[in-house]
């Protein structure tokens, strides 16, 4: 009897604990709850409306405004396959439980969204519900997009409908049980999608509110830069403390002075967002490179400034990254780094642009010293850029070739470890198996 009682008690305690943990995960602060002031309904907001296009474009034609809004929401990056037609979908995202392919957003009636009504489109973007009633996976950031106004969402739809239809059937995802149970997603949406439009904060500046709309609703920055909890929802208590995107570390963008962007002068931040590179700050690559190229680079100066204003208001959140190392000596003798394979690859393939000192040979964008990625002991982004490269050859934009095809896992691990040992604060210990795993990410 006593044993039964004890068991019941234990079971009860477990239930309570689980409920508490789940509750902790579910009942989270909103994305900008940190801000002083009181959120109000958009209609009640007295300042300049933070939604829609910026004032510079207020009188532009509908096509221009629609294109601007779709850039703000960066739909193209995910909904375009490598080498495929714009917005025709088919881009794979490799997740721990399978691969998901983005759907076709062109107005093709059979394979795209050509037959969708406005209500159906709003339902999809705000609630994550497809016209057939099924729920999307939260890889589609509708929990952010839900903050977009109806007008903005419909302007995006109008823009999509102005495109040439591309007949390209959607590919089914490859999820296994239990993730393939779509009804689970309905529960997820209930828990984690607030399903309400953006609420400006009285007491914050107009620029801040515009920035909040751009960052939280349209730009969905937190989807990559905020860590996730066990239920795959953003952990807003650790807002912008860094996450992972397609195997790349999406670094801390809170105002922590070491781990985040707290010590970046606002101008650096603005230049980085608009151009993908600020002096001494490395080059936006991987998913961030796409965000710059397809979205941020197209935003107006005032919108970039608004984003900077907002980002600089986010509380500092440490994530335990080491302090960046200073400049490295030029000696090829290599300060006793016992890594002949790494040295060999570095001198053959890297020195041409990055220089022996890691200070960049021909252009600042090739600098290695002082970069977050090089001072990240996981070396994830170092491995990623060696594998994937960035940009297109033969243009003035920063370009790095991909070395995935002809260099082995062992070679890439060796050169990544060599780079962090020489130019970073903490040598990484990437193994060939790690590189093999990174290769599978994309």
């Amino acid at each position, binding site marked *: 009897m006593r044993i039964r009682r004890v068991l019941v008690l234990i079971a009860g305690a477990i239930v309570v604990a689980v409920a508490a943990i789940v509750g902790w995960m579910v009942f989270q602060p909103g994305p900008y709850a940190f801000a002083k002031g009181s959120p109000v309904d958009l209609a009640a907001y007295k300042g300049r409306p933070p939604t829609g296009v910026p004032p510079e474009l207020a009188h532009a034609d509908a096509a221009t405004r629609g294109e601007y809004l779709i850039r703000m929401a960066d739909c193209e990056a995910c909904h375009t396959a490598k080498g495929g037609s714009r917005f025709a979908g088919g881009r794979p995202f490799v997740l721990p439980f399978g691969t998901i392919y983005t759907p076709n957003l062109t107005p093709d009636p059979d394979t795209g969204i050509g037959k969708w009504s406005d209500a159906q489109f709003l339902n999809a973007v705000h609630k994550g519900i497809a016209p057939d009633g099924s729920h999307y996976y939260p890889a589609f950031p509708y929990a952010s997009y839900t903050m977009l106004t109806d007008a903005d969402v419909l302007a995006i739809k109008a823009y999509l409908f102005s495109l040439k239809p591309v007949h390209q059937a959607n590919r089914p995802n490859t999820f296994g049980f239990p993730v393939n149970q779509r009804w689970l997603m309905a529960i997820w949406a209930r828990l984690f999608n607030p399903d309400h439009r953006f609420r400006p904060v009285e007491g914050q500046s107009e620029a801040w509110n515009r920035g909040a709309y751009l960052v939280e609703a349209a730009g969905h920055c937190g989807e990559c830069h905020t860590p996730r909890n066990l239920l795959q929802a953003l952990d807003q208590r650790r807002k912008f403390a860094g996450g992972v995107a397609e195997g790349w570390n999406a670094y801390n963008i809170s105002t922590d002075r070491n781990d985040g962007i707290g010590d970046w002068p606002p101008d650096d931040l603005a230049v980085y967002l608009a151009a993908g590179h600020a002096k001494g700050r490395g080059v936006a690559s991987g998913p961030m490179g796409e965000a710059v190229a397809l979205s941020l680079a197209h935003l107006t100066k005032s919108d970039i400034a608004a984003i900077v204003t907002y980002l600089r208001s986010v509380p500092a959140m440490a994530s335990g990254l080491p302090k960046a190392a200073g400049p490295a000596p030029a000696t090829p003798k290599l300060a006793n780094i016992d890594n*002949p*394979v790494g040295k*060999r690859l570095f*001198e*053959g*393939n890297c020195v041409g642009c990055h220089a022996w000192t890691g200070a960049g040979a021909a252009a600042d964008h090739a600098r290695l010293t002082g970069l977050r990625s090089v001072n990240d002991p996981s070396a994830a982004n170092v491995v990623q850029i060696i594998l994937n*490269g960035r940009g*297109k*050859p*033969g*243009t*003035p934009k920063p370009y790095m*070739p*991909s*070395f*995935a*095809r*002809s*260099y*082995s*896992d*062992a*070679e890439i691990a060796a050169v990544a470890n060599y780079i962090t040992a020489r130019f970073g604060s903490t040598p990484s210990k990437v193994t*060939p198996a790690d590189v093999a795993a990174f290769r599978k990410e994309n």
Partner: protein
Amino acid sequence: MPPAPEAATGLPRRAVLYGGAALTAGLLIGIELPWGAARADEAVPAGKRFNAFIHIAPDDRVTFTLPAVEMGQGVYTSQAQCIAEELDVALDAVIAAHAPPDQANYGSPVFVVQATGGSTTTMAWSGPLRKAGATARAMLVAAAAARWRVDAGSLTTESGVIAHGPSGRSIRYGEVADAASRLSPPTEIKLKEPAQFRLIGKPMHRIDTPDKAAGKTVYGIDRMLPGMKFATLMASPVLGGKVGSVDQSKALAVPGVAQVVVLDDLVAVVAGNTWTAMQGLNALAIEWAPGTNAGLDQAQLWTNLEKASLGPGVVAKRQGDAPAKLRDGDVFEESYELPYLAHAPMEMTNCTVHVHDGGCEVWTGTQVPGFAQTGAAKALGIAPEKVTINNHMIGGGFGRRLEVDGVIKAVRIAAHVDGPVKVTWSREEDIRQQLYRPLYHERLKARVENGRIIAWHHRVTGGSVMAHWLPPAFKDGIDSDAVDGATEVPYAVGDRLVEYIRHESAVPVAFWRGVGPNGSIFAMECFLDLIASKTGVDPLAFRRGMLDGTPRALGVLNLAADKAGWGTAAPPSPFGTRRGRGIALMNAFGSFLAAVADVAVSDAGDVRVTRLVIAADVGKVVNPDILEAQIQGGAVFGLSAVLFGKISFAGGQVEQGNFNDYRILRIDEMPAIEVHVVPSTADFGGIGEPGTVVTQPAIANAVFAATGVQLTRMPIDRALIAKGA
């Protein structure tokens, strides 16, 4: 026992195959060519041509118009050595000029057509060029003898001066050139005996080096013309695809872009400089119509090839009844597969063209000026005579410039451009849009009895280069190049059957340094190691036992093994704990080479070649220093191929594009290379390619020794030899 390959006629096999009547083609002594046809980089003063090769100006300047093209292999120097030897002029006084398209005068005695390749230059041209030099010398001497009224036999020549010993008189070549050229050439010509050689066989300095070291050499890509425009191009990324649609406005909006040329299969942008043209091309959003090859995939290409290799083949060589003997007994069988390869010479494909007044002028570096001329003419629908080809020093050929696709594309573009235009390919375009070394499947079968091979079956399957490049050499269903190295082997292997199966895919194919023997000899040498390993004998001893009939082969094999310390362990290396030593032999191009490779293999399967010892018997040698350089360079070419070389297709597109993914060996990955040359009086052999051919199986065999795994598909797949794989 098979006849020793070098026995036959003293001529290289290929010459015997289809040389025939052409052997005299280079020797039309006394024919005056209008000088304008052969444009040297420097203006040549009025003077006299003695024949198609030699021109002597009144100021004594001697210009040699050289039939074989210089692309790094040193033939300008070795050809000049041959002429200068017999003409008695100093080598550094000679000006070298590129031969114009003129098959009658410069057609290769080996290929008939005017072509430089296949390691044939020295074997083909040393004779005719020496004769040309000796003939011209005899005419100069005769003219001097007539002037002085003395017996020609009493005159001597040295460094461009004719001397009459008894009277102490002397006269320079330039002074008698005019008179000499009016004489009819002598019918009997006596060449020097080897003992009299002052240039041939000596490590003379190359005549092209000083300019190259100073950056003064003008390659095709360096040609500048007044009013020239610059263009770059992109052809359909999917093999054989067409341009669907292209909005030109984006390119034309780039400042400095002059014009967009849209042809059915490619788009070119013309601008004030190459960079701007590239920016214009980048700005274009081209919609391609991919066509029928969009599904082309590497795995499928391999499968199709393997299926084709199941036969039946065309018999290239039959000796005894190998199939009957292979029915029972100790029979071994294995297939070896070789990938598509790009040439990737450092000078990428480029061509400058001016189409005007119903004709066309072309500036480029080509191994085949005649093909360039006819190709350009055909593209424009004009007569070949209306096309002038100005040949240039070549920044690496390796077979890439035996094809004229780059000339034809440039001409097609230039037809739409006003004034001269230089079309420069990006590296990516050069790697993705060329003709490749064919995919080869080499199927081998052998029966061993009492430690000796008594029956041998070798079946070569692959795309035929000869079929498009030199159709007469593709006879009765056999590509004479693809089976080169298989039909004649140095080993006694009993009854033999060699077959060939032509299997074409959509991928266009071309010669590639080492040509057919790269495949056939690689397979044979790997297969011998497989048999040796399975029968538990030493690979060197196994080979020695089959070489009684070919002493030159045995000689190089023993020399390489000795110098490499065969029988001792390969030395330790920081690059891997598993170490191995491999040996290989090759006989092709009229030469014999053996190589011993030492490798270290890391746990992850990365291979580091630590040492290469190569022994060579190439017969007589024109220039031993160039010979050594060619073996070293050829070996590096083979190293890159066996370690990294691969062109693969996905969705009808080449997956590689630049040196980041089409990997070339770097200086810090180099093994030590030792070259040992056997002195020989046998006929001149070829040397541009053997180093490439022999190195690859030596490395593969060393990896086999180190890991116990014989890789049958190249390049080395590290996953298969990673520790625990």
